[in-house]
């Protein structure tokens, strides 16, 4: 997991954000390419800032 490698820092507060969810992103939903999901998906890590509540995300490594 990327969290173990590098903390996600809130761009507003500069504090470490909390990783609270992983979300499958179907790229075919974004492009409507109609290709098989097994080649068209990724997992994003979803973060929230404990100070301001701001959100962040990045692809899981």
């Amino acid at each position, binding site marked *: 997991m990327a969290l173990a490698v590098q903390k996600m820092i809130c761009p507003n507060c500069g504090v470490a954000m909390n*990783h*609270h969810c992983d979300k499958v992103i179907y790229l075919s939903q974004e492009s409507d390419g109609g290709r098989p999901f097994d080649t068209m998906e990724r997992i994003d890590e979803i973060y929230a800032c404990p100070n301001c509540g701001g959100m962040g995300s990045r692809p899981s490594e």
Partner: protein
Amino acid sequence: MATRPLYIPVILGTVRAGRMSLHAAQLVTGELAGRTGVETELIDIAEVPLPTNDAGEAIKDPQFSDRMSRADALVIVAPEYNHGYPGLLKHVLDSCLKEYIHKAVGIVGVSAGPFGGTREIENLLPVMRELGLVTIFWDVNFCSVQKVFAMDGKLRDEAYIFRIDKFLKELIWMAKTLRYGREQISLTNTVH
């Protein structure tokens, strides 16, 4: 836990002319606004500028996206059209995704008939889940809505105030709980 107020916008989920759901949405927004520690506003999907020649996150409206990111919970007020929810409500909701994750949602159904949008609410539940929203189990059902509100929007049946109070209490509890979870409980450090 952070002491900043909860932000709980109310989404009016229909654009149809003459919509009585506007009165229901205004009533719920007013009840929310009167609660300590809560900020709210009414978001009318008719005023969210989205094209209809594309769909999904590709047409995201920055202002709507910012509001959804900031939100701790949502109230969706929607009428039942042909046993379903309005298509343009789905169009607007589909324009965001990560913005909704682990946030509470409560649904207010509206209909001219006796069921108060129950079928529309049931149809919305799987959509809410896929968007990452967490539904509460209280709903508000405005049955025979043309009798509940006068044409000027004045509430004729005060019993709805009690029902809305129950609905909002659970929604606020869920919003606080999920905010704590989002900001304090790590997915990767969960005890097994």
